[in-house]
């Protein structure tokens, strides 16, 4: 047992409680327990191991009074107790002073450590005590609320029970008989009375001195009174002795050590205890132990109808005459002295520590038996499939899985059914998440119960993906089947909600039918401790702060809150890395990922970003028509992505959330789960810290923060892809559940996003090729070390299945695969004619990737554009804004550091799969992942080097997909090649990722503080990104005017105004002319950058062009609309 004593005094600070605690501690150590002490800050208390001091320095005598110093010390104890409990992890806390018990009780409750309190003095029944003291003592007792309260004598126990303390027990003070027996009695000619204790009023020495005076006057027999101890009354007692002229008889011998006290006792004849009040005085037991007769006031075990009334000579309290009479009797009658000494010595046997200790031990065990197991309470539940009920302790804070699912389903259906009447906030935070999660969980627990990944985070991630997939399928079925029955607008809440409710109920029925009994026996603890609440709430602040920061910036305020959010992410990440037990890594990572995504996605009250404009257009088409039309925009690949059409339309219908916020808010939550899946994947190979670093590295990428919220169709697909990789790298034989789930998720990728599908096919096919190659005998003979657990057949089947499904979906059903055919054909031609492999000749792509700086549009592009397009106007290049450098040196250092990290990433990531395959100490599972890494690498190289591929698909997004695998292989490879000293290795890896997080242009944190970089839209309301992607209300209104007034006319807008026109005027992206200076007829929309900054953007042969034009450029056009940030010209 691990026991923490919290005591006011501890040897060598004088006091009964000090001795009791010290003796109890000795016995507990002797019996194999671990004991730690938390005590006051006195010089007298010597430091030793497991002894902690709290508060301001104080004198032992002052500790019994409530002084300002003492109050401050108690305040410190409040905090100190957290630290000590956290460090010592006691099973039980035994307090010995009620004010201290109160101060430490909060920490004890938070850490769920039961508390036992011993009242060494009970005063609240004693009317001689001040009213304040008595009330305060009771109040402290109620506040501390210990499990058991003890007092050292029965009378005090009775007082406690009378005062309403029902859990009071007797725990007598004890004595080490062996120590006190080990002495030789010395007989004096002069009878000596000994009294020991602190020289405080409570001890009643004043009455002893007065009694000595009376005795001196009433007997001729010589006697002596020795008073051992020190205290605040030392001087007063000395004066009293002089005043009463008893200095020849009474001597203050000062403070004595225990051994000296034993010697003093043995050379004395009678012990006197004149205390006014106290619990069982230790001096009584000590005197008895050394066979001294005792004269005492009725305190402690001598109170009331005591069993010891014949073992001592009792005298009333504060009665010097009675005391003098008793002293005289014993002075004169040696036989009486001997008789009392003998009886006392017999009586003391029952107070031997060896006996008292057993009582204390039984009490501790009784308290611990009531307490729920600490591990179960403190640790978050990791497994969704918990232990059967009969193995778990009976507890009414438990709920079985069946009831939990029934409850969740009921709540979800209730919310869905009444969503129309509920506020947007409730729908956003409860209705929608539950509508996705509940059927997903029912599927996960009903259809895929045997799945290996049972961690809660894995269960929730898979359930969310399944929920998304289910809604996609049901909305597609509604869209296709309901028109057969004459319903023209199937994507309406009136049809979708009942259908979703019905499907959820069907899934519930299947789940109950299949696993009802098992689920009934699977129990979860519902109790959530305070610390778990803190662990939950603290990371949750990150997305809330990020959202608040984005909102404030949207409303024209500064970026302080966003910066605080980013700094908080960095601090929490560092905090976690330094102390991995403090926060839940999955929850922290999810919130960091979500915070980063929201900081970008929530900028602007409208859809902001690039492809998202077209995505929003097809979403709006499905939402407003309440029907997804395959031919709404013929050949448009976006319209073929269900993650952009039926899925968001259904989600919007379920919840009534504004269309924009389905993308800006809900999709970001779903996508943030990808970081969780990467953590879970990393956890297969690394500890929590390593897996967290992998996840952090993934989310700190510039394209994760800046690009992904602007391309929402890939977000859903990437979650499915990450889960497929997670299921693929599963130990042991492929299970049916895994295979089916991978198939479903594969279908999910296909219908969600075409490019994610194609990249997945590339990765899987390349991996399969490597795996098959290793099966060829000449190769396998030469490379015997490679014995992959990952099955070439599984990977191949998965790749083939994706190819078949994508062909079916994009070619046969949607007829939107012409781009793919062209791209593949061009790539093939390039390959066979050796045209390809243009590895980033001018370096601009490399700069964009892997943590490089985001270069603004180069000015020289303007001249190429002007010449190439024969632009008639006098257009001029212009440089993009950078944040002002606040400190040259700091900027220089940050830039160099970032360059260094960038080089490390660029070199390490691509070769990491090869490193892992070639270094022998790599574990098999990592090697398996390395095979997928080789596939990712091959895909990445193909997209990077083949112009036909790289022009068709953004390389950054290929990288983000490949990073699902490469971020793990990269960090693992770093671990492998670093020096094999664990501490150094860990420190370097941690430092690398944390520096990457802070310095990466993705977060933009460091450069926001020191300046010298391109402004980022998530952090600034200026700069190129802001001009291009931040959509203002004025621009939206302008686009809507365009939609209403320029139908069937040619629309003109520059490259980024086009995004506004696409999203809010509904004009097909490809139909908009962006070389606006060539406008001859039609309508031209100028956006905020055009109007406010006279800045225009174009795209010419893969080059970004940024230019200014003369004021009079549109002077020959009619200006038919204007607001403060947009204009529409007509010609």
């Amino acid at each position, binding site marked *: 047992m691990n026991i923490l004593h919290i005591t006011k005094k501890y040897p060598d600070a004088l006091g009964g409680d000090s001795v009791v605690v010290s003796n109890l501690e000795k016995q507990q150590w002797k019996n194999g327990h671990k004991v730690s002490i938390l005590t006051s800050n006195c010089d007298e208390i010597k430091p030793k191991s497991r002894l902690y001091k709290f508060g301001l320095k104080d004198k032992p005598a002052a500790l019994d009074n409530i002084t300002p110093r003492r109050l401050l010390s108690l305040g410190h104890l409040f905090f100190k107790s957290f630290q000590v409990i956290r460090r010592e992890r006691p099973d039980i806390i035994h307090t010995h002073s009620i004010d201290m018990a109160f101060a430490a009780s909060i920490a004890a409750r938070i850490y769920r450590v039961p508390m036992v309190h011993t009242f060494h003095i009970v005063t609240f029944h004693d009317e001689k005590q001040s009213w304040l003291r008595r009330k305060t003592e009771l109040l402290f007792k109620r506040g501390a609320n210990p499990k058991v309260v003890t007092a050292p004598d029965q009378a005090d126990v009775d007082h406690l029970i009378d005062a309403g303390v029902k859990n009071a027990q007797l725990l007598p003070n004890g004595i080490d008989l062996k120590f006190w027996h080990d002495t030789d009695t010395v007989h004096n000619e002069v009878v000596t009375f000994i009294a020991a204790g602190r020289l405080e009023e409570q001890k009643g020495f004043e009455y002893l001195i007065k009694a000595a005076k009376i005795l001196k006057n009433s007997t001729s027999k010589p006697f002596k009174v020795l008073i051992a101890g020190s205290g605040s009354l030392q001087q007063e007692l000395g004066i009293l002795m002089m005043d009463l002229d008893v200095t020849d008889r009474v001597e203050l011998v000062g403070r004595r050590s225990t051994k000296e006290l034993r010697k003093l006792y043995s050379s004395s004849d009678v012990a006197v205890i004149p205390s006014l009040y106290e619990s069982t005085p230790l001096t009584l037991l000590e005197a008895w132990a050394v066979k001294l007769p005792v004269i005492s006031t009725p305190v402690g075990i001598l109170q009331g109808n005591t069993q010891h009334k014949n073992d001592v000579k009792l005298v009333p309290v504060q009665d010097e005459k009675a005391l003098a009479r008793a002293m005289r009797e014993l002075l004169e009658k040696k036989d009486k002295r001997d008789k009392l000494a003998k009886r006392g010595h017999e009586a003391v046997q029952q107070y031997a520590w060896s006996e008292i200790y057993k009582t204390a031990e039984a009490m501790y065990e009784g308290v611990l038996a009531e307490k729920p197991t600490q591990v179960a309470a403190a640790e978050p539940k990791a497994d969704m499939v918990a232990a059967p009920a009969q193995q778990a302790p009976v507890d*009414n804070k438990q709920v079985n899985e069946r009831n939990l699912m029934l409850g969740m389903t009921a709540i979800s259906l209730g919310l869905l059914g009444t969503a129309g009447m509920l506020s947007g906030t409730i729908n956003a935070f409860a209705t929608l998440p539950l509508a996705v999660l509940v059927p997903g969980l029912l599927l996960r627990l009903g259809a895929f119960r045997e799945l290996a990944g049972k961690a809660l985070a894995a269960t929730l991630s898979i359930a969310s993906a399944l929920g998304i997939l289910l809604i996609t399928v049901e909305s597609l079925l509604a869209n296709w089947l309901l028109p057969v029955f004459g319903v023209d607008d199937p994507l309406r809440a009136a049809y979708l909600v009942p259908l979703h409710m019905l499907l959820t109920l069907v899934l519930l029925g299947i789940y109950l039918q299949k696993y009802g009994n098992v689920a009934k026996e699977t129990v979860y603890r519902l109790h959530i401790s305070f610390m778990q609440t803190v662990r939950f709430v603290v990371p949750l602040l990150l997305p809330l702060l990020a959202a*608040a920061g984005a*909102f*404030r910036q*949207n*409303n*024209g*305020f500064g970026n302080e809150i966003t910066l605080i959010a980013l700094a908080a992410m960095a601090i929490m990440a560092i905090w976690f890395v330094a102390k991995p037990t403090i926060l839940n890594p999955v929850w922290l990572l999810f919130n960091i990922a979500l915070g980063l995504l929201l900081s970008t996605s929530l900028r602007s*009250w409208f859809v902001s970003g690039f492809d998202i404009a077209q995505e929003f257009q097809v979403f709006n088409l499905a939402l407003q028509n309440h029907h997804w039309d395959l031919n709404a925009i013929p050949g448009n690949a976006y319209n073929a992505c269900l993650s952009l059409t039926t899925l968001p339309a259904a989600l919007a219908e379920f919840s009534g959330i504004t269309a924009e916020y389905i993308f800006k808010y809900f999709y970001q939550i779903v996508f943030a789960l990808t970081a969780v899946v990467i953590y879970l994947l990393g956890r297969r190979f690394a500890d929590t810290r390593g897996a967290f670093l992998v996840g952090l590295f993934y989310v700190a990428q510039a394209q994760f923060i800046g690009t992904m919220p602007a391309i929402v169709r890939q977000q859903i697909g990437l979650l499915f892809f990450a889960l497929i990789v997670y299921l693929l790298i599963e130990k042991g034989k492929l299970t049916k559940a895994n295979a089916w789930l991978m198939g479903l998720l594969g279908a999910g990728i296909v219908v969600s996003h075409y490019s994610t599908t194609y990249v997945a096919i590339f990765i899987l096919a390349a991996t399969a090729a490597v795996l098959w190659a290793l099966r060829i005998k000449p190769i396998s003979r030469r490379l015997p070390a490679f014995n992959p657990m990952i099955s070439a057949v599984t990977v191949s089947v998965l790749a083939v299945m994706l190819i078949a499904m994508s062909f079916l979906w994009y070619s046969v059903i949607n007829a939107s695969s012409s781009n793919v055919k062209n791209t593949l054909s061009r790539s093939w031609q390039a390959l066979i004619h050796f045209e390809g492999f243009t590895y980033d000749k001018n370096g601009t792509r490399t700069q964009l990737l892997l943590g490089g700086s985001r270069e603004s549009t180069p000015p020289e592009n303007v001249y190429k554009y002007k010449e190439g397009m024969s632009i008639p106007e006098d257009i001029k290049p212009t440089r993009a804004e950078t944040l002002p450098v606040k400190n040259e040196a700091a900027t220089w250092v940050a830039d160099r550091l970032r360059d260094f990290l960038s080089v490390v990433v660029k070199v390490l990531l691509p070769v990491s799969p090869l490193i892992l395959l070639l270094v022998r100490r790599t574990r098999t599972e990592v090697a398996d992942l390395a095979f997928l890494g080789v596939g990712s690498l091959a895909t990445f190289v193909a997209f990077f080097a083949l112009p036909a591929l790289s022009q068709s698909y953004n390389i950054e997004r290929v990288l983000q997909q490949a990073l699902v695998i490469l971020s793990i292989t990269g960090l693992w490879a770093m671990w492998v090649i670093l020096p094999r000293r664990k501490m150094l290795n860990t420190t370097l890896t941690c430092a690398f990722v944390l520096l990457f997080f802070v310095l990466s242009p993705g977060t933009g944190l460091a450069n926001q503080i020191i300046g010298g970089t391109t402004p980022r839209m998530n952090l600034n309301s200026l700069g190129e990104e802001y001009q291009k992607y931040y959509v*203002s*209300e*004025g621009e939206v*209104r302008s686009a809507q*005017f365009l939609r209403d*007034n320029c139908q069937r006319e040619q629309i003109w807008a520059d490259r980024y105004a086009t995004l506004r026109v696409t999203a809010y005027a509904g004009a097909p992206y490809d139909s908009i002319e962006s070389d606006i200076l060539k406008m001859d007829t039609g309508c031209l929309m100028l956006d905020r950058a055009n109007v406010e900054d006279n800045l225009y953007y174009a795209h010419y042969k893969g080059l970004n062009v940024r230019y200014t034009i003369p004021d009079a450029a549109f002077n*020959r056009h*009619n*200006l*038919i*609309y*204007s*607001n*403060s*940030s947009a204009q*529409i010209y*007509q010609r």
Partner: protein
Amino acid sequence: MVVKFIMAQLDPQASSRSFSPQRIFRLALATLVAFAAVFLLALVMPSIERHLDKWGLLPRHEQLTELYIPNAKNLPASYTPGEEHTVLFEIRNLEGEAQTYNYIITARKESGGVVMELDKGSIRVDSNQTRDVQLSATLHDLGKRIYVQVELSNGQKVGYWLGHETK
């Protein structure tokens, strides 16, 4: 019965315990506290919203004014000197409060230089409302092409070109 049922749900061991008035009181108190909390929340919600808005944490509309020519497709293409020409424009006030807009309507030659003031005035538009202004002015001969412009005092403009038409 209902209370007993609810209590049984709250505490699975309730059925084995006595049906004490103390427990009913606790349940009633908890319900009361819950209602009081909701009531208080409803009371303080406007104040919370006010503060959130003050701190910029709630979506705000941009303050803007839309100035436009309605039915722009059917704008006249030409003018006849000496004849009345009708100018029609609309203002939508999205500034968040009622505004009075001063406007000036001018006509100028294509080459610039000569500017003819056709009209000026002011118009009050309530918040979130649209008002149109229609007026007629006689246009002098200013050349082959003239530009008719409406300008508000905040600098916003709309305008269109008219070709010369002889009778």
